[in-house]
């Protein structure tokens, strides 16, 4: 299906147009918004097609798999590409309330489009080497977005971010080299067939561990998450929002792919390792969040901790847990993006996100406070919002799989999240005001937050059909035969 290339082609063309267009704010912002809107539209088209007609495959240039590069969209990829479109559109809207002029002149908008292209490509590709290339596309764009300013904190953060991510890429590439040597292919579907036949003892374990390390760094799992809280609070809020919403999810997506396609027959030790790493990620992430006094750093640690939810339920490899994980990823993309945008409003109002400088929002900015309530309490898991439903699904999934300890940890971490978000809410919005507001919150920012709120509420109200969808997505992932046949036996 030719449609599959659109979520990659649209941001690429938009970036090209943006680089040629005048470097003034007005044309740049409108072109960026139009591009993101088109990306969202094309992503929805892809999703609807996948939803109606099953897994969609495009063999680039007509080279049959496994010899060419394959693009594949199953339900998981379709859902996530729509989320990329949503986040992209929200970030493009936010630009209207002002971007640092130097950044904007230097190429903020095209870089953001390249970032979106990299993420969409990573979700749609059916080839591991191609996945590596999309990782690099995404990383280079994110490196430049992160390093565009020259403050000391940003320089430090940027270098840590670059070094650890390049190391992760090297590990991934090493795994790919060994994998090609062992199997003679890098096509995901072909590998799903060949993987169980790797005869040299130990090679599959080495490869699996290399993949696990590389993707865990990208996803920010314990003990490889330290780079994330060290860097995500330094770039401007919209950039942080795009990073937090999308980048670590690509790591989670890659983990879901390799565990469902390749490692489902893997030694139990590997699955246990992922489970232990996820549990530690959840607990340490949220405990660290409780110790922080800066809104954006609290968000970083919450981001880390909640990634653990999704990978913990992935490690169970049951339909119910995986369906919960997909729901949670979707919820988390919307809510964490939204919260970084909220931090952007706080920055505009007070020039700081330290708790000491916040407070009094409830009195000064009642409308903004009402808008901020939904993502904060949704992340906290307050019923009936989407975070509660996602956690409920994950807990039910773990209990149904007999993993009572994991379920218990998920519940405990749910409590820690509630505490963390409760404190954050009380300290930044509810307590008596410390300082007067410097500027207005910015209507486009509030508009984007409101739109993401609408989607969060829609996820809550439409939870039942959405769960039905994610359950089908999970079934598709766990019965990987369908994926393999769609790719290898596609008419081209």
């Amino acid at each position: 299906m030719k449609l599959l290339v659109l979520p990659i082609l649209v941001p690429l063309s938009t970036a090209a147009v943006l680089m040629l267009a005048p470097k003034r704010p007005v044309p740049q912002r409108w072109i960026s918004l139009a591009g993101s809107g088109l990306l969202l539209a094309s992503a929805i088209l892809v999703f609807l097609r996948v939803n109606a007609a099953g897994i969609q495959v495009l063999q680039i240039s007509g080279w049959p798999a496994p010899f060419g590069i394959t693009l594949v969209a199953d339900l998981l990829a379709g859902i996530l590409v729509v989320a990329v479109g949503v986040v992209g559109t929200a970030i493009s809207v936010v630009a209207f309330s002002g971007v640092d002029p130097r950044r904007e002149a230097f190429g903020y908008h095209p870089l953001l489009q390249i970032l979106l292209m990299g993420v969409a490509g990573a979700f749609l590709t059916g080839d591991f080497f191609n996945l590596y290339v999309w990782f690099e596309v995404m990383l280079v764009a994110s490196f430049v977005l992160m390093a565009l300013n020259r403050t000391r904190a940003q320089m430090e953060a940027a270098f840590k971010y670059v070094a650890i991510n390049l190391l992760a890429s090297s590990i991934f590439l090493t795994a790919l080299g060994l994998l090609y040597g062992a199997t003679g292919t890098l096509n995901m579907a072909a590998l799903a067939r060949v993987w169980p036949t790797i005869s040299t003892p130990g090679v599959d374990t080495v490869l699996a561990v290399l993949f696990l390390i590389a993707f865990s760094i990208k996803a920010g799992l314990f003990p490889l998450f330290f780079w994330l809280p060290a860097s995500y609070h330094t770039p401007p809020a919209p950039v942080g929002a795009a990073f937090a919403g999308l980048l670590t999810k690509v790591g989670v997506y890659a983990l879901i792919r390799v565990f469902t396609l390749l490692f489902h027959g893997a030694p139990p030790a590997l699955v246990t390792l992922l489970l232990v790493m996820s549990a530690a990620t959840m607990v340490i992430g949220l405990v660290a969040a409780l110790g922080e006094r800066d809104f954006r750093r609290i968000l970083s640690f919450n981001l880390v901790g909640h990634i653990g939810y999704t990978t913990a339920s992935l490690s169970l490899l049951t339909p119910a847990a995986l369906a919960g994980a997909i729901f949670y990823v979707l919820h988390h993309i919307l809510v964490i993006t939204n919260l970084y945008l909220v931090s952007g409003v706080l920055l505009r109002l007070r020039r700081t996100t330290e708790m000491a400088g916040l407070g009094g929002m409830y009195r000064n900015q009642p409308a903004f406070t009402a808008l901020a309530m939904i993502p904060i309490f949704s992340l906290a898991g307050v019923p009936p919002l989407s975070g509660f439903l996602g956690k409920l699904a994950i807990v039910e999934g773990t209990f149904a799989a007999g993993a009572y300890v994991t379920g218990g940890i998920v519940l405990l971490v749910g409590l820690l999240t509630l505490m963390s978000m409760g404190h954050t809410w009380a300290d930044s919005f509810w307590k008596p005001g410390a300082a007067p507001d410097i500027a207005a919150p910015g209507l486009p920012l509030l508009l984007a937050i409101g739109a993401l709120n609408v989607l969060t509420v829609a996820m809550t109200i439409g939870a039942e059909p959405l769960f039905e969808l994610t359950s089908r997505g999970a079934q598709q992932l766990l019965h990987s035969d369908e994926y393999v046949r769609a790719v290898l036996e596609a008419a081209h």
Partner: protein
Amino acid sequence: MEGLLALASGILYAAGIYLMLRRRLAQLIIGLGLLSNGTNLLIFTAGGLTRARPPVVPDGATALAQPYADPVPQALILTAIVIGFGLTAFSLVLAHRVHATVGTDDVDDVGRER
């Protein structure tokens, strides 16, 4: 030959990781470069070494005669070299900027407020 190349790529990995663990940004970048070269060598070796058998279908034949060199690892390496080159260039610029902003290339000092 495989043994020699495996050894070479192992040495490149070891040297690269050693340099990445040093405190100076310049050494970190050289380390990254060595690491990516080690990876390229690894892909080349793992893909299988075949001497003087280019994967070209001769005149009059319709298929390749065994044995032939597998072109895929070379294509992968070519891509990886280009990406690695871009990333090294970017890291150098970033290190230069860090030096210009902070006035040191010691990783520990970059984060320290003065």
